[in-house]
């Protein structure tokens, strides 16, 4: 098979699996039904009239506040931490850097469960009585930010590290380190900081778990209710429109306005050890207190609460949910494997395309519940029963949601492979598959491993779409936790949450232990 036919197959599969179900859902609702079915017009008009409903406008505004608040708070926590790691002489930063990324491994809905047990109405062991309720938007923003700030830290750190040190060194001849930081470094990495905030905003916009558990009515929750409680497909899809359009608008802005404004280059002149700001003793203490408090709030308190609430009934929980644990594991393994292979080829073929991101990032713009509905709508057909009634639909659910993240993990590793390495092989008369197998794959090995782990972790924690699409007889661990939540079984919920965190943590720790060079990259 030559390069062109493989490219065609990969792009065709990407279109069928990822793009077509989404397009099909929206076009079916808006055009075909309107054209053939007059009753659909009334139904559509009714659905559209939802937008004039003040209740919905309030919900949409609340969702925007939720996403914006989370993005701002994440920037307030993530950017200073990244600067402390990369530009100061704060002690213990190698260790702190690793543990500051741990909150990313706890699904936000699990953190919410822990905080509800600690400060809310759930749990009975270490419950703290507060004079106010935690079931509000502020709590949702704080919990979501504590889960997502490592994304900002990671992207800002990478931006600072990859900034060409010559840019700062040339300023160091005439300016103080503080001035360089505020006048040179910060403005140069501003686009990367905005991109980090943008990703947090988009991800929060369609978050279902956290607001749903805190009983806050956001758009994602409303969409989910319209479909799962009232089976009103049209309303669910039409309701998602403002959310989808906001996200698509932002992705377009990112693609055309933000991505190319980057001043960050992959430079051989590492600036990790140059231009470090010498902190005073007091500043060091303040910096450490700031970082450690956030890490304690984001990771250690939720995990400790869950451990205490579980009363260490882990074995009992393992027996109770052994099928779901097993299902989660093998489904995540298959999902991550398929995602890694397809992400590699998509990243490879889109390497030189300027606007590929518009398509690659499209699924991120769609709430997970709508992605689930689009899969049901597309595959629920007697002809595709083999897909719809088996585990394959869950795998497709993983692919449609998480492929963009795996592609974005693998593509930086691919773009660092010098073009001449592949061209040398081409000139040496090596065919496409031989070049891929012998040159690109071995050189992108680290990226593939990282992509697999990212995919595996995301699949393991997935809740929103699986709740809708899982066929009878196949339940995953997050779905089991969600079901148990409704019965108020705090012990089991906590134990299973601990098991889920361990299932996510173990492969990540193994990866970092076996591939130590990756630690230096994060």
């Amino acid at each position, binding site marked *: 098979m030559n390069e062109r036919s493989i490219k065609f197959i990969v792009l065709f599969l990407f279109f069928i699996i990822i793009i077509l179900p989404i397009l099909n859902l929206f076009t079916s609702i808006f055009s075909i039904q309107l054209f053939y079915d007059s009753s659909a017009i009334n139904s559509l008009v009714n659905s559209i009239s939802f937008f004039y409903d003040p209740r919905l406008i309030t919900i949409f505004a609340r969702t925007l506040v939720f996403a914006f608040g989370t993005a701002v708070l994440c920037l307030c926590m993530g950017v200073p931490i990244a600067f402390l790691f990369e530009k100061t002489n704060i002690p213990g930063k190698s260790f702190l850097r690793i543990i500051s990324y741990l909150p990313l491994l706890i699904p936000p809905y699990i953190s919410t469960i822990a905080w509800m047990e600690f400060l809310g109405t759930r749990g009975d062991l270490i419950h703290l009585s507060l004079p106010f309720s935690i079931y509000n938007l502020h709590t949702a923003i704080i919990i979501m930010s504590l889960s997502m700030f490592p994304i900002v830290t990671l992207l800002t750190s990478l931006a600072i590290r990859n900034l060409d040190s010559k840019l700062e060194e040339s300023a160091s001849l005439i300016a103080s380190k503080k001035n360089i930081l505020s006048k040179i470094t910060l403005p140069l990495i501003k686009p990367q900081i905005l991109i980090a905030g943008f990703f947090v905003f988009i991800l929060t916009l369609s978050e279902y778990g956290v607001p749903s558990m805190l009983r806050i009515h956001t758009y994602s929750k409303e969409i989910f209710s319209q479909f799962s409680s009232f089976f009103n497909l049209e309303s669910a899809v039409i309701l998602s429109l403002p959310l989808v359009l906001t996200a698509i608008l932002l992705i377009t802005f990112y693609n055309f306005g933000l991505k190319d404004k980057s001043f960050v280059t992959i430079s051989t002149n590492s600036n990790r050890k140059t231009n470090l700001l010498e902190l005073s003793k007091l500043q060091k203490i303040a910096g450490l207190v700031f970082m450690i408090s956030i890490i304690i709030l984001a990771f250690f308190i939720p995990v400790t609460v869950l451990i205490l609430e579980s009363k260490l009934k882990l074995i009992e929980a393992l027996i109770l949910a052994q099928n779901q644990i097993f299902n989660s594991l093998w489904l995540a393994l298959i999902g991550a494997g398929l995602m890694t292979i397809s992400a590699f080829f998509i990243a490879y073929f889109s390497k030189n395309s300027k606007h590929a991101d518009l398509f690659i990032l499209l699924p991120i713009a769609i709430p997970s519940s709508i992605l689930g509905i689009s899969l049901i709508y597309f595959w629920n057909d007697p002809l595709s029963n083999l897909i719809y009634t088996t585990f394959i639909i869950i795998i497709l659910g993983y692919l449609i949601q998480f492929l963009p993240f795996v592609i974005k993990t693998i593509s930086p590793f691919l773009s660092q492979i010098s073009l*001449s390495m592949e*061209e*040398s*092989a*081409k*000139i*040496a008369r*090596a*065919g496409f598959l*031989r070049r891929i197998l012998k040159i690109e794959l071995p050189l992108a090995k680290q990226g593939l491993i990282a992509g697999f782990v990212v995919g595996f972790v995301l699949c393991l924690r997935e809740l929103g779409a699986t709740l809708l699409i899982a066929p009878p007889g196949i339940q995953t661990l997050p779905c089991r936790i969600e079901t148990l939540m409704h019965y108020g079984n705090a012990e089991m919920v906590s134990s299973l949450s601990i098991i889920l965190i361990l299932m996510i943590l173990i492969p990540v720790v193994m990866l970092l232990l076996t591939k130590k060079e990756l630690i230096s990259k994060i």
Partner: protein
Amino acid sequence: MIMEGIKIIGIEKHFEKKILFDISLEIEKNKITGILGPSGSGKTTLLRIISGLEIPDKGAIYINKKCVCSEKIFIEPEKRNLGFVFQDLGLWPHMNIKEHLDFVLESKGIINSEQKEKEAVKILKLVKLENYLKIYPHQLSGGEKQRLAIARVLAQDSKILLLDEPFSNLDPVLKKELKKELVALQKKMKLTIVYITHNPSEIFDIADKIIILKDGRIMQEGKPKEILKKPKNKFIKNFLI
């Protein structure tokens, strides 16, 4: 008339702006041709077009009388039987020297281990790397890396070598030594070499023919002595100083 070697007729290319304007030239067989010009003159683009790594907007290319590129024909780089040494060499960091040559020999269809070993040692002797079979690129010195890049193209059995500023990162002493080896190799193996550089001193003493490019246009071409004696304009005169 189409000659042996490389013939280029009316090549044009643009990316964001036009890089090459109606380039026509001839590269003689078994000779060293130097393409010289300042940064941004279009040298590398021209070399990449000859190799097939870039497709021109207009024009035709003949290699040994065979059309490899025209309005209707485009032969893929892997089918042009050319060797290319890239400016950054493009060595594969995960392969040792023997594996580099094995990769090329296997692509040529040689799969027998003994035959591969024999061929590899024969080629590595030519570039004085025969004792480094298990060494990886990062363990080699600058000069040894250049030799490996040349060995890799020699393993292809190609009689035409395209060299894109191959010695630009080396110190003057090593550069001189490698140039001497390159000329010896060219004579011994009857190679046609296209050598591009921005540094006149790198090419004038070894080239049979020089082509000077500026802003995507040919400024002057001829034998090195002729050009030195009669630079066509002030730019060339200043450039050669």
